[in-house]
């Protein structure tokens, strides 16, 4: 286990054993074979620090917070030590022209090899004027920076699927990275915010194997997004027994029963919260008593209300009154037409005579 990265870590007081243990744990979380942990450690220790450009678009910085303030800063932070983060507005000391210069230097020096991390969605409305950096719209910036990228990692639901900016009525015309970039490998790490270990896992995979991990149909790493929250939820047995909390403070809620009826989107949400948990494995939304919001799924904000059970439709009686009125109007109209027809037939009645019985 030799190389620039491990040297740096050791200098910072992280032992090789700590690093190895971390890699083994990460490999286990990513469902890689046990031996991969060691290989990962070897490879990452020796990895050349790839240049990474982090582009913040229409975002709230929650994703950055999630990753940089994760509970074990030394461990997650290590990964950032494995990369050369050449441009990150929130974290970088430089500003203004200096920052822009750093960006362009990184792009020029590592053309075709750098990684781009994007958080935030890209507004298309008003020619992208809703979000500009240094006078350049997000759209232009993404296209320009994306051109020389080896791969793009879309962090957070906004970058992955448009997220909250794209929520109905989407005033800025927000779209996701994959809506714009079609010719580069893109990994989506959705979540609002995403789980930090997923981010580091993807970077570790890239550093170890020089490739992106296996993705699902929505561009998410299968290792973390392969199963639903519901599949791995510790409250699942209550669902199967039909034991549901009806309110957030009833007996069922106290007993830790299933939160399906309180709007939990676990059954339709793919994420690793139930296994990886949050805050260094302390807890996660369902364990803290609140249903899953489904934040790692596209358009979760518009999926019919956070507190409406999945089996309950958003607003099915929206047109009920109007439909009944139109139906009644149509019915009455047909009734009048029918009565007129019947009346006409009656007044045209010719009394049948014996002769009429013959054709």
């Amino acid at each position, binding site marked *: 286990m*030799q190389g620039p990265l491990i040297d740096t870590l050791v200098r910072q007081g992280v032992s*090789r054993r700590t690093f190895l*243990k971390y890699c*083994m744990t990460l490999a286990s979380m990513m469902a890689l074979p*046990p031996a991969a942990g060691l290989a990962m450690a070897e490879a990452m220790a020796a990895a050349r620090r790839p240049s990474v450009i982090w582009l913040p678009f229409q975002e709230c910085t929650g994703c950055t917070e999630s990753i940089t303030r994760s509970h*074990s800063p030394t461990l997650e932070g290590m990964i950032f030590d494995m990369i050369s983060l050449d441009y990150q507005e929130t974290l970088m000391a430089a500003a203004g022209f200096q920052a822009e210069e750093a960006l362009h230097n990184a792009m020029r020096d590592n053309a075709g090899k750098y990684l781009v991390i994007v958080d935030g969605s890209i507004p298309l409305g008003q020619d992208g004027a809703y979000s500009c950096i240094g006078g350049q719209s997000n759209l232009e910036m993404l296209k320009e920076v994306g051109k020389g990228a080896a791969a793009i990692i879309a962090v957070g639901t906004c970058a992955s699927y448009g997220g909250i900016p794209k929520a109905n009525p989407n005033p800025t015309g927000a779209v996701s990275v994959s809506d714009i970039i079609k010719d580069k490998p893109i990994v989506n790490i959705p979540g609002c915010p995403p789980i930090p270990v997923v981010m580091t896992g993807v970077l570790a995979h890239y550093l170890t194997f020089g490739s992106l991990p296996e993705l699902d149909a929505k561009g998410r790493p299968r290792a973390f997004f392969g199963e639903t929250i519901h599949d791995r939820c*510790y409250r699942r047995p209550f669902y*199967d027994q039909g034991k549901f909390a009806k309110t957030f403070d009833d007996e069922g809620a106290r*007993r830790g029963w299933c939160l399906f009826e309180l709007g939990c989107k676990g059954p339709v949400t793919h994420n690793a919260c139930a296994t990886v948990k949050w805050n260094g*494995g302390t807890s996660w939304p369902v364990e803290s008593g609140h249903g899953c919001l489904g934040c790692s799924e596209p358009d979760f904000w518009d999926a019919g209300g956070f507190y409406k059970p999945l089996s309950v439709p958003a607003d099915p009686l929206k047109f009920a009154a109007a439909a009944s009125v139109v139906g009644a109007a149509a019915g009455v109209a047909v009734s009048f037409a029918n009565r007129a027809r019947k009346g006409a037939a009656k007044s045209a009645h010719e009394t049948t005579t014996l002769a009429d019985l013959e054709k």
Partner: protein
Amino acid sequence: MTLDAIPIHVVNQSPGEPGLTGNAPPLLRELAEQVKRLLESGEPSAIDLSALPLTPVDLDWLRDKLGSGEISVTLQAGGESTLNETACPGVWWVTHRNEQGAVTAQFIEVAWVPELVKAHPQDVAIGQEQLELLISDL
């Protein structure tokens, strides 16, 4: 209330002790295979227990069968890790915990000594420097 207090009904029961899924016994055969490989070629291997559908009862059963051996290693590196040799020498029960004490990964390793226990030459070199420093101070 703690999670343990929630009664969980395990549907998939095999005859015998409640909670046993029957997924544990085959692991013993796999371990035997791995031990054989270690003896023949010196190649270490491991089973990632968190990747397998094992209930706590399964794990208890497995640990009970494998027993405890002569060596217990406790490692303080980003949380505590325990690497305990089982009654079968060369088979190690490895549990990694994070700083909060939550289990993050659990393996059964088959190795002369688990990789994590070995001191790395470069760490040893640092140790050497340290020693020399100590000697020079004498």
